[in-house]
């Protein structure tokens, strides 16, 4: 049995359902993430796990205890769940050490002091214990908030867009740091974010949410390479859809050639064997720059990414593609360059993108 289990959780505000039928489970010591555009209900889902929102339906279980469900609602005070808030919510009138010690009330002073200095050392702020939160940088405040949440040894740690208020550079570095801190504490955690890089950097399991529903729950690798719907394909990672046609078992034909799936998954639709129209996902890393290739495409736009360029290309047939090219291949806009397809995972959906309820037609 999993450590954290959500079973058909729904939350409604005044008759308006914000989270609908959310189910997932997480093993102890793992980090889960709810990823979705703003307003998709992910923060509400997190607050429901913490106990701030009552469930309209469904059940939340932690380590086998029912925290919320029909006839049960344990208040947040009694759930032993730590939470890191978006704006950190540190107590401004308390020093860093006092903030961290806050959740340790009722413990004997020597033990408290030991635990606080231990945590401050872990987050690398042992010398800043006497400072006040406003004297720290955003990243430091973030780490203090995490230490404060970890101090009482919670059974679960929740992080609500923990890096949203930090700049991009810091975000990347801190998400790895926080992951290490959580792993060191052996904590089980659930994170909420709209930033897929953050989700991929931190989480073992990621769930993509849309309009209150969980669209797909899985490993980051699977979300990227085996998206279950056009929405997930579009939201997670970059890419374009090009029209294609099923030409045989595990094969689709697109303008640029024929793609063959190594190990096709069964198509959920029947009667799709031949000639069926699909849209095929091409990731920027599926389109490789190759000077000697017979296929040519014109550069429409380019964005410098440091180590590589992200080129927007237009084929002779008018399809637009994205391609990641090492940055020493510096081509001008309007130039025609040779490309080759290098598709490991063929992802095709029966309907054109933008419509719902599609399943992968073939995948590795």
């Amino acid at each position, binding site marked *: 049995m999993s450590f954290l289990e959500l079973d058909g959780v729904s939350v409604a505000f005044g008759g308006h359902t914000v989270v609908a039928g959310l189910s997932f489970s997480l093993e102890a010591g793992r980090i889960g993430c709810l990823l979705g555009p703003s307003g998709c209900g992910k923060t509400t889902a997190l607050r429901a796990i913490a*106990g701030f929102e009552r469930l309209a339906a469904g059940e939340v279980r932690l380590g086998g205890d029912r925290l919320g469900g029909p006839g049960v609602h344990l208040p947040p*005070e009694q759930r032993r769940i730590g939470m890191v808030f978006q*704006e950190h*919510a540190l107590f401004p009138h308390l020093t860093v050490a006092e903030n961290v010690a806050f959740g340790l009330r009722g413990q004997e002073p020597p033990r408290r002091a030991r635990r606080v200095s231990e945590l401050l050392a872990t987050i690398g702020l042992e010398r800043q214990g006497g400072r006040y939160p406003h004297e720290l940088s955003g990243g430091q405040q973030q780490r203090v908030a995490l230490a404060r*949440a970890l101090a009482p040894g919670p059974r679960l740690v929740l992080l609500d867009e923990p890096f949203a208020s930090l700049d991009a550079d810091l975000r990347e570095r801190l998400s790895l740091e926080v992951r290490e801190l959580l792993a060191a504490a052996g904590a089980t955690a659930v994170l909420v974010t709209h930033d897929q890089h953050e989700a991929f950097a931190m989480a073992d399991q990621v769930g993509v949410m849309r309009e209150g529903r969980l669209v797909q729950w899985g490993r980051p690798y699977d979300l990227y390479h085996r998206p279950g719907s056009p929405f997930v394909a579009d939201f997670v990672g970059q890419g374009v859809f090009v029209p294609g046609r099923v030409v045989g078992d595990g094969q689709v034909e697109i303008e640029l050639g024929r793609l063959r799936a190594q190990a096709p998954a069964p198509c959920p639709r029947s009667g799709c064997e031949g000639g069926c129209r699909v849209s095929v996902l091409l990731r920027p890393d599926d389109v490789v720059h190759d000077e000697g290739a017979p296929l040519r495409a014109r550069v429409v736009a380019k964005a410098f990414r440091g180590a590589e360029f992200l080129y927007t290309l237009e084929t002779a047939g008018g399809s637009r593609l994205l391609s990641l090219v090492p940055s020493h291949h510096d081509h001008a806009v309007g130039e025609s360059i040779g490309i080759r397809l290098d598709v490991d995972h063929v992802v095709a959906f029966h309907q054109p993108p933008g419509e719902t309820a599609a399943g992968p037609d073939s995948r590795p």
Partner: protein
Amino acid sequence: MTPSFTIQRIETGADRGELRLGGSLTLAEAGPLWEELRRLESSAARGQSLDFELSAVERIDGGAMALLACLRAELQRRGVRSEFVAAGERVQRVVHLYGGDARVARLRSRRPLGTFDQLGRATLAVLREVQLALAFLGQMTASGVALLRSPRSANWRELPATMERSGADAVPIVVLINFLVGLAMAFQASAQFRRYGANIYVADLIGISVSRELGPLMTAIVLCGRSGAAFTAELGFMRVNEEIDALRTMGLGPMRYLVLPRTLALVLVLPLLVLLADVAGVLGGLVVGVWNLDLTPRGYLNETIRAVSVWDVASGLVKSVVFALAIALIGCQQGLATTGGAEGVGRRTTAAVVTTLFTLILADAALTALFRLGGM
């Protein structure tokens, strides 16, 4: 350059007119077309009719049609009847495409809500607030009882600081205000009392009204403005900043940790302030008595002591405890109910002060009536 369209205004009868359009109406000449239309239609008034006659139109494009349809809608909103008439089949299709034959919805002026409607809504809003306040009182009582069972779980550390801020720091203003109230009352009364030679009874009036009524009420009003509003702002900010949620995840309920210490502080401090207020009020009266009514200080004080019973003072203190509860509970409840950022904090603070003042006056009237009916 002459435009390729023609417009004429023709009066077809009393209050009836036509704009006769012809030629080619296109977006390229929309500017002059619009000016011309404006000039010709401007005299049409409510109750009249002004149609667009299109029989001579050879060509009309979407841009020009949109202009005409817009003008017709505007005329109709002004109360001028207006239609497109006599259009050829091709032109009529364009008319239809741009809704030129559609009914124009009357521009609804926002009707103010009726008196009963407003009254009903306001009553419901008040009842909802009362319901929330009662629910809060219930929670408060429950955690108060829980606190009696395990007194160590409360946040006693904040109590002395809150008492100092709400009590000691309020002494100057409380003393000054009550002194001035005593003074003003005595002035008002002295003019009347002197006429009957009842100068000395000013001491009775001031002593009793200050101890039973004015002392507790004025002090409570000062505390509502100083401490009640501060509680709302503090807790409101903590709420908006998610600090309250952070407290809860660390196992500390806001009731025990924030509300109870504040309430207790006010309940302990307000009666003490009221005692000071009583003394200040009597001193205010004394000044007027000596200066304006030829009384000796000793005579004034003796009369005060004779007139004011222990119960007079005690009933004021009982009131002050009720007032303290009202100030703290409403202040904290409004603070915890805050939503919507800094603006929300401001709104809730205003609401807290207004609600508290109203509650104070109501509670004062009720308690006074209760004490009088009980013969006390």
